[in-house]
């Protein structure tokens, strides 16, 4: 572990792991309901990768926390206010277009973030990032292709993708917020300051959305409150009710 305040590192790891946990959960809700069999496979595969990444991030988080907990304890026994994912990933799936737009907006951030984290001064962080970045390189390629295909498809698919972008874009800014935890991570060389990723992100997103014939909304308003736990959306509580039900109803069991 790098020489850094333990609680700051823990918060950083929770932010990473909660993002993948909650988005992986959302994506898994599609099982058996997607527009075409290839998409069922792709969505299950994406969800599976994200749950695998969660095991690594939250597994390390539990070690850093040092209270003898496991990744499962963190996933299944925390209440909403202790989750540190960005609001974007907890938003409902909506239609397939909204799900894939959300995925693209997240994957683009994640691919850039992980690209930096492979050089982290914390060897465990670097190791997790190395494994996850290979998966995410594929995720972003696929979600970008789908956004382009549907944005530049029929009139209806274009309209739906623009509506998805309009709904989701105000949640993008939270991924680039910086606070004292991020500053501590940056100073220790563990993780980049999120704000420093914005330029590369904007360039990537602009290129894909341009090809998709979609327009970035003009409003600058940013919804936030997830990554610091100040105020999640109403959606998270319902998601946790479902996800945590067995562990809560039958505490202390082995599964």
């Amino acid at each position: 572990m790098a020489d850094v305040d333990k609680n700051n590192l823990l918060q950083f790891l929770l932010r990473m792991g909660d993002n993948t946990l909650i988005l992986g959960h959302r994506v898994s809700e599609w099982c058996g309901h997607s527009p075409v069999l290839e998409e069922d496979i792709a969505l299950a595969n994406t969800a599976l990768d994200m749950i695998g990444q969660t095991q690594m991030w939250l597994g390390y988080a539990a070690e850093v926390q040092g209270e003898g907990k496991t990744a499962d304890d963190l996933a299944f026994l925390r209440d909403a206010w202790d989750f540190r994912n960005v609001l974007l990933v907890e938003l409902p799936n909506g239609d397939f277009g909204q799900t894939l737009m959300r995925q693209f907006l997240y994957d683009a951030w994640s691919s850039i973030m992980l690209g930096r984290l492979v050089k982290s001064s914390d060897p465990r962080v670097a190791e997790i990032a190395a494994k996850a970045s290979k998966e995410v390189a594929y995720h972003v390629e696929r979600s970008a292709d789908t956004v382009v295909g549907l944005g530049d498809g029929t009139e209806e698919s274009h309209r739906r993708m623009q509506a998805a972008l309009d709904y989701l874009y105000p949640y993008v800014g939270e991924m680039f917020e910086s606070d004292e935890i991020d500053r501590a991570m940056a100073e220790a060389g563990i993780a980049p300051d999120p704000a420093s990723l914005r330029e590369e992100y904007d360039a990537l997103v602009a290129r894909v959305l341009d090809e998709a014939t979609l327009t970035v909304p003009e409003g600058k308003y940013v919804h936030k409150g997830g990554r610091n736990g100040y105020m999640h959306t109403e959606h998270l509580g319902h998601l946790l009710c479902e996800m945590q039900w067995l562990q809560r109803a039958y505490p202390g069991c082995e599964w």
Partner: protein
Amino acid sequence: MYAQMIKTVSSGVKSRDEMSDEERAFQDKIDRDIKIEPRDWMPEDYRKTLIRQIGQHAHSEVVGQLPEGNWITRAPTLERKAILLAKVQDEAGHGLYLYSSAETLGITRDEMIELLHEGRMKYSSIFNYPTLNWADIGAVGWLVDGAAIINQVALQRTSYGPYSRAMIRICKEESFHARQGYHAIMKMAFGTPEQKRQAQDAVNRLWFPALMMFGPSDAESVHSEQSMAWKIKVKSNDELRRQFVDQTVPQIEYLGLDLPDPEIKWNEERGHYDFSDPDWKEFFDVIKGNGPCNVDRMKNRKEAWEDGAWVRDGLLAHARKRAAAKVAAE
């Protein structure tokens, strides 16, 4: 397995003398265990029967995502969630190989999906039963995939090349699923009293539906003879069912669970277990659409297909634009 009650398209098994030269050459190949390939001549009835069988099998893999998907969002640990996601992804993949295999017989996947949605093609009766507690997920892997494997291992030797090759590939993954399922239900059966109760409940509810997966008894199974002669069907329904019971009863005993059928007893003389028949009236009710989940399963599949039309249309329109642009640039 998931192919049951396949009505063979045939007017009865012909003797060699009744066969045309082509039919005789075809039957000779089958008798010598030479695989039939898509471009080979084949009787029209053989082709039609295979489309029914492989299509039903493919549909079962796809509809089978629903009862398992029912628990993905409630899986109790990250590892169990990952295992279940991987399994469901495999099932969808099996659907894909099987549709591709059926497509070599001259029908498209979209046509088969339409026939399913119109109720003119079926999927296995087992997926019309609900998954009600977490132990059901273990039981589905262990009993349902276990029953499927017994049929599919036999079908690896089936006469149609693409189907046989799909079965070989699928069997490898199914065996893995059955082991994972058994492991999951072991945790339940050896866990707290409440977990054990769930495991018992799952076995009680799924035992007879699993036995039904092999189809009606041989006496009731019409048209089997021609499918056997064509090696589309390799073992009889009762033979496969007996094999399943013999294999599964000791596994239930190992779990320390009560047997789901009081008539199950080892028969020394026959060297097999005796057991009760499933309620065949219930089976035919489920086949006719009156199972506990038939209506919901089809509603879900149709909605997914209809709600996804704009996605398929959009992606197709984009691919055409791209192809046109490429041609224009050349």
